[in-house]
């Protein structure tokens, strides 16, 4: 465990930035948080599956539950019964400064391997796992993948109900899903975890825009339309409507594009190689830091011959103030008053964003600027050294 203390602390730090805001809600972080706060109040009550299913859904569900002789189509309640024994509650470090000392996880082998998220909760020698039936175990940390923010724990038990990661299913926008987790630590002992019902809102990549999400994970996620990602829910299981594993609920994450909280899960398929490596005892590489990918000698506005308008506001629109003669920008036909919109198809909506985007482009590489001139959109190919 000692070898993990370093990176674990980093995790703790990241979370301590994130979580207090989540805890403070309306008081601490502006009115946009009020919705979140209300969700917080409401979510523990959302124990039953069909809460969001709509009248028709609920009516039909009721029929399915009561109707005799319906064999093949398993009802949500039957599915819940099948999934619950695979869920575990995890208790560890935390409990101070608004950091919860619990999270969720699920079994991925009959021998007691538990998949969960990698967080400060695991940053202690005493991690406790409680099974669905109330049995309590000390868990050992098998390994973690800091980039995917997942960890695998092991308890000494046999013949356990579990999900097979290899049999996980892909899901799409519009699909109905169930989310199992111990959000807010509502369940204790042998109480089953909480079930939420919703639909996949979208499948998207967290790296679509730089800095939009404060996480090292850069792959695809399922965005959900249920309030799945509340404190304690991280590490929970997302299943399709048949109870087949689809993903793992992620940590609380703010979407800075909309200033709202994101409800999401990481697709199980994204985790398979990492879990295999962890189980095989291989050390996974550190998370790749975005800034490490920056070139040593990036493109600058100066090198291009572009002078932007004075950057007075935090979101000053990137209008070109002047183009220096005989520079790459001049030769490419850029003019004063052009508004820069995209750098290599990445949106750059302020002077600051333009500078930031350019810092990822090597001076020796060609790249594309999209500018607006009047009502017209123009694409310009630039090269700093030509």
């Amino acid at each position, binding site marked *: 465990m000692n070898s993990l203390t370093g990176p674990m602390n980093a995790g703790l730090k990241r979370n301590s930035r994130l979580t207090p805001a989540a805890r403070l809600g309306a008081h601490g972080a*502006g*009115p*946009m948080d*009020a*919705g979140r706060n*209300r*969700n917080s109040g*409401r979510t523990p009550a959302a124990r039953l599956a069909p809460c*969001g299913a*709509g*009248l*028709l*859904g609920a*009516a*039909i569900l009721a*029929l399915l539950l009561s109707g*005799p*002789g*319906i064999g*093949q*189509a398993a009802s949500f309640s039957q599915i819940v019964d099948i999934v619950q024994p695979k869920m575990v509650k995890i208790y560890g470090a935390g409990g101070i400064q608004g950091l919860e000392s619990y999270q969720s996880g699920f079994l991925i082998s009959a021998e007691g391997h538990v998949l969960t998220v990698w967080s400060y909760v695991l940053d202690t020698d005493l991690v406790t796992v409680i099974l669905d039936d109330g049995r309590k175990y000390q868990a050992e940390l098998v390994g973690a993948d800091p980039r995917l923010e997942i960890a695998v724990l092991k308890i000494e038990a046999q013949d356990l109900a579990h999900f097979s990661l290899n049999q996980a299913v892909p899901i799409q*926008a*519009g*699909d*109905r899903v169930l989310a199992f987790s111990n959000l807010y630590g509502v369940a204790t002992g042998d109480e089953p975890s909480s079930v939420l019902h*919703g*639909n996949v*809102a*979208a*499948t*998207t990549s967290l790296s*679509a825009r730089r800095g*939009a999400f404060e996480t090292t994970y850069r792959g695809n996620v399922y*965005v959900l*339309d249920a*309030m799945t990602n509340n404190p304690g829910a991280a590490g929970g299981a997302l299943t399709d*409507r048949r109870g087949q594993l689809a993903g793992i609920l992620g940590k609380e994450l703010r*979407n*800075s*594009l*909309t*200033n*709202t909280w994101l*409800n999401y899960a990481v697709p199980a398929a994204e985790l398979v190689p990492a879990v295999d490596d962890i189980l095989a005892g291989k050390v996974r590489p550190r998370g790749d830091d975005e800034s490490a990918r920056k070139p040593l000698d990036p493109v600058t506005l100066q090198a291009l011959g572009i002078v932007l308008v004075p950057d007075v*506001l*935090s*979101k*000053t*629109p990137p*209008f070109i103030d002047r183009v220096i003669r005989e520079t790459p920008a001049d030769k490419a036909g850029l003019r004063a008053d052009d*508004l820069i*919109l995209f750098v290599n198809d990445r*949106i750059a*909506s*302020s002077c600051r964003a333009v500078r930031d985007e350019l810092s990822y482009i090597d001076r020796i590489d060609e790249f594309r600027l*999209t500018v*607006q001139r009047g*009502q*017209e*959109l123009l694409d310009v190919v630039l090269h700093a050294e030509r």
Partner: protein
Amino acid sequence: MKLRGLSPLPNRFRTMPLHRVWLRLVCCSLPLSFCLLPLLAGSAAADVQEDEERALKAAVEAVAPAVLRIETFGGLEKVDSVLVGTGPTTGLAVSEDGYILSSAFNFVQKPSSILVTLPSGKRATADIVARDESRMLVLLKVAADEKLLVPQAVPRDEMVVGQWSIAVGRTFELGQPNVSVGVLSATNRIWGKALQTDAKISPSNYGGPLVDIQGRVLGILVPLSPQRQGEVAGAEWYDSGIGFAVPLADVYAQLDKLKSGSDLKPGLLGVSLKRGDIYATPAEVAACPAKSPAYEAGLRVGDTIVEVNGKPVARQAQLRHALGPHYAGDQVQVVAERKGQRQEFVVTLAETIEPYERPFLGVLPNRDPPPEGGGVPVRFVFPGSPAAQAGIQAGDVLTALGDERLPDSRTLQDGIARLEPGNAAKLVRLRDGEPQDVTVALATVPSNVVDQLPPARGDLPLPDQRPAVGKVEIKLPEEKNEAFAWVPENYNPQVPYGLVVWLQSPQEYDFEKLAERWKSHCEAHDLILLAPKSADARRWLPTEVDIVRKLVDSLAVNYPLDPRRVVVGGYQAGGAMALLVAFGHRDLVRGVAVVDASLPRGGAVPDNDPIERLDYYVGLAAKSPQAARIRAGVEQLQKIKAPVTVTEMGDTVRDLNDEELSELARWVDSLDRI
């Protein structure tokens, strides 16, 4: 339940995959599904959930080409303390030739450039053509030739609470719309302007459509709030299960007007209604200024509105519901009862109402019990006022205004309030028992405070039984705020007292000191002082506005108050809080006194109202960091013709000195001026 289109299948079904037909039938008729389902169990249709899922996806697919991604560039970062997002937003195509509707929330940052990604994947620039300031929508026009696909709108009368409603946006991925599934929760929310859904509505789908199971559009998703106006109002309810959409059918009716570039504004009738609970009180017109649409259509003070566009109006809230969906320029049919007779009027709603300016006669009524046979004994005549010019003197008794007899000063105040500055008012004056007609030309309320006031009443003997005087604690059992009142030693319960609620800055709460300063004024002017303390020792919270109100109500149980002289005031933070209390409780507060405090930022100043009078007293130090904003606020108040008294306090920021405090006390004493 109606079985729609069972035989023969309507065209829509023929083009539909079979499972959707089946589902459509189930949707049409739940009882049908009750009998069908057990029969179908085990057959191909056993997996109802799968069919539902497919139908939901098909609905999204059907509308998807009309759901467009919008990107904005530049602009503000924060609006009304809400951090504005920078991500893509959503719009809905509403006409082939490039018109797109979206939520005003998406453009609140006033971007310098707007781009729309068309179905072909091409980006095109767009401009805002017009805004709907009632439903918080914007209409964009893209500069491109590409034909857009226009979705079908669900007619209002086909919407049923409980039906599927799917929120669609295009913010996460360009190629795949994001969805949230729910049901229609209500069809007439926000004063009849919006639908409500429990699908998760947030910046990730504001501006996108709410669609039914067939992919037809129910409405455009927008944040809205029943209480507040503005682009970001209601955004605090994001993802909460309470989401709103403006019915597309309603918007289509106004589309040509929007396309022509005219903004749509909420329509105003131009009446003030009789005071009272809007859910219990009939809509009796208490004031109706001469230039208002209602007056021009023939409505008059005293009429009770009983019907609007055929909808009965028994209570004031129903009137608000009936008028809510209407825009400025709309004609509405109003039926009012006048002396038991129903009369019909056609009113053209206005965008703005000429601000009401209170007329001024120039008298202060005496506060002795009214004389035998009624009338208004004059306590004081303002020098230079219309009353002074007409020869009215202190001691005269005014007995009639026009043809109306005056039983008390309240009748005179209401009668004058109905007129306008410049109007002639005919009064009957009684002097030494001799009636005499006088005609005055009404002026406007003066901004200065008179130097001296005669006593408001004669000496009355104190009764044996009196409630406690001196320092009195006022405690609300449910709140932790402390509050003390100062009741003057000469308190006489037969006389209604004025009230000064003084809100001290939270760090400087000192009741004894405050009471010491006000004691003599309380005795001289029949005033009670109330000083609530903020619960948080560092600041006043906006939620405490209602606590202040409750404290006043609680005090009034034992000490009857003069409703014309209830004042809230304070210095700096206390003053800012006083304004919130005054604006939040117009029915209670008649004067607000602020020292070195400016009008709330971004908040609308309430209109000047003939019935719910609100006078302002502003203390201003030239070198205050707030000075510029305070002066701007005063100008704003003068523009809406509110009566404002400004006291220049020199350079340095400070609280009122003794001289200014006695001026303030005289101002409070003269708030019942007519």
